[in-house]
């Protein structure tokens, strides 16, 4: 056990640096993949969509996981003022960095498992499971009891444990009895994915509460009954609301009824955001000079927009109009970029953004930040409008050819692409100083 100091935990900081590199990769592959939306057949024989999509999606997931792990490890050490098992943190770092990089390489050679999100060969899962068990051990080295702990410790514990469970569950398809029964396979697949996203959100939201406490200089919120009530509600949703992904799948009706009922409890969270919005705005003005806080504020706004959309999508009668359309893509992008990435950038700026050699000036930061938010809003809206139009045309013109649908949606995809370019420029501008700072810390260690 060693006293905590930022420089004592370089590998936790390196998670965020490497995570940011995965974010850059996700932007690059995303732009290349999106080219195929606007120029049909572009790159078809060199880098076809079945390679570019997993490269993009996995890079984005790896950014989220690496940065979330880095934030949790850094904040745990900071909160407890000790660094425990630094060697194991290093082992964990190398396990994930190696396996994630190897996975991206394997896609280039056309090696797939063909599963949504986790499209890599199942052999890589062995490394990921080992890495996550090391993370779990690293986490529990810090906490022998949950008594008197603030809510973020409960959230981190939930995220660490449930991610492992749901990741193992997502590999049940390897059993022939599951794999060769389509409805069972898809039910279990989306059950695991729905809960897994909830699990990594627990890591991220827990870290955001820690950071907010740190900025405010007290633990008033993280120990309040309201914080624990919202945590319990989020846990309830993590466990039981995943069925809204599969309303059209011919699985047991109770799966859908449970999901519908549980998803509606999120209205409470939405109501609380509306009720507390004036306070959020006054806090935003108070901390407007802190870069990290700006990302926390942006994430709040994106939570509101995406939660509203998610609740509408969770009503089965509305869901069937949006399911299988770009509304779902818009929602996924809105949550992974608008919420997850904004929060992770808040942590990245808090942990890596204090190096004056690489710090952005306030005006440059504001330009990059505003480009990012405006581009993301345009990107999100273009996808949602395209999705609604696709749904309308499919419902009203049953014989319409798929190619014709695409031709009609193409103007929206041009907006989507230009907004995507703006988003990439904004995020690149925001991330590069952090990456430079991260490499500088690593080399100066």
């Amino acid at each position, binding site marked *: 056990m060693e006293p905590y100091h930022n420089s004592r935990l370089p590998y936790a900081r390196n998670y965020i640096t490497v995570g940011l590199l995965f974010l850059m990769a996700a932007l690059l592959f995303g732009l290349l993949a999106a080219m*195929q*939306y606007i120029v*049909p*057949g572009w790159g*078809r024989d060199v880098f076809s*969509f*079945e390679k570019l*999509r997993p490269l993009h999606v996995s890079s984005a997931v790896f950014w989220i996981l690496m940065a979330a792990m880095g934030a949790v490890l850094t904040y745990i050490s900071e909160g407890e003022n000790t660094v425990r098992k630094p060697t194991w943190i290093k082992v964990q770092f190398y396990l994930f960095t190696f396996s994630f990089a190897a996975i991206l390489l394997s896609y280039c050679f056309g090696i*797939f498992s*063909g*599963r*949504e999100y986790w*499209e890599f060969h199942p052999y890589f899962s062995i490394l990921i499971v080992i890495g996550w068990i090391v993370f779990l051990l690293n986490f529990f080295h810090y906490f022998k009891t*949950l*008594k*008197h702990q603030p809510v973020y410790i409960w959230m981190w514990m939930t995220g660490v444990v449930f991610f492992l469970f749901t990741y193992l*569950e997502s590999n*049940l398809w390897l059993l022939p009895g599951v*794999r*060769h*029964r*389509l*409805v*069972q396979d*898809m*039910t*279990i697949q*989306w*059950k695991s994915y729905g809960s897994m996203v909830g699990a990594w959100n627990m890591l991220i939201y827990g870290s955001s509460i820690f950071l907010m406490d740190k900025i405010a200089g007290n633990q008033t919120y993280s120990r309040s009954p309201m914080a*624990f009530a919202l945590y*319990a509600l989020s*846990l*309830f949703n993590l*466990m*039981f609301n995943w069925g809204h*992904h*599969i309303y*059209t*799948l*011919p*699985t*047991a009706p109770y*799966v*859908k*009824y449970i999901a*519908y009922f549980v998803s509606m409890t999120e209205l409470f969270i939405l109501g609380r955001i509306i009720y507390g919005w004036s306070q959020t705005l006054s806090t935003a003005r108070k901390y407007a000079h802190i870069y990290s806080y700006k990302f926390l504020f942006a994430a709040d706004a994106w939570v509101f927009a995406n939660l509203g959309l998610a609740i509408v999508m969770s*009503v*089965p*009668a509305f*869901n*069937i*109009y949006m*399911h*299988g359309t770009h509304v779902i*893509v818009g929602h996924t992008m809105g949550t992974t970029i608008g919420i997850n990435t904004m929060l992770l950038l808040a942590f990245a700026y808090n942990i890596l953004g204090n190096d004056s050699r690489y710090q952005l000036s306030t005006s440059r930061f504001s330009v990059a930040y505003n480009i990012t938010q405006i581009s993301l809003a345009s990107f999100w809206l273009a996808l949602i409008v395209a999705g609604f139009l696709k*749904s309308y045309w*499919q*419902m009203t013109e*049953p014989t319409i050819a*798929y190619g014709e649908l695409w031709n009609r949606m193409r103007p929206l995809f041009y907006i989507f692409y230009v907004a995507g370019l703006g988003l990439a420029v904004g995020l690149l501008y925001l991330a590069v100083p952090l990456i430079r700072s991260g490499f500088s810390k690593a080399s100066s260690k």
Partner: protein
Amino acid sequence: MRDHQLKVVVFTVLTVLFLCYSFVLYFKDYQETVPADALAQKGKDIWQQKNCGSCHQLYGLGGHLGPDLTNVYGKREQPYIEAFLRTGTTVMPNFHLSDSEINALIAFFKYTNTTGVADPRSFTKHLDGTISQQSSSVR
């Protein structure tokens, strides 16, 4: 102290319910009308190995570059499907599939078509927000 006990009880109860629900779903009888035969199983393995789901959907889940293929076997003649698989399209690359791979994929589409109907128009919407579906397969 009582506050802490309440937190532990809530967490434990939810976790136990979650595990019970999970195991019910693992061992439930899914009553698929026709189980996948060996050729359809091979077709599903090829579907995954070629990462077809990155562009196409089954039951609306998957990529968006190509159409949903859950019921393609019920909507199109077999030679039509075969032609796509053999040559690709402007957007879809030619995967140079062998005859046996093409037959396996067609058997897989025949199987997916028996599992249900993915078309959102086949659902009846109710005032309480729920949906229901009458038919279970296209042909």
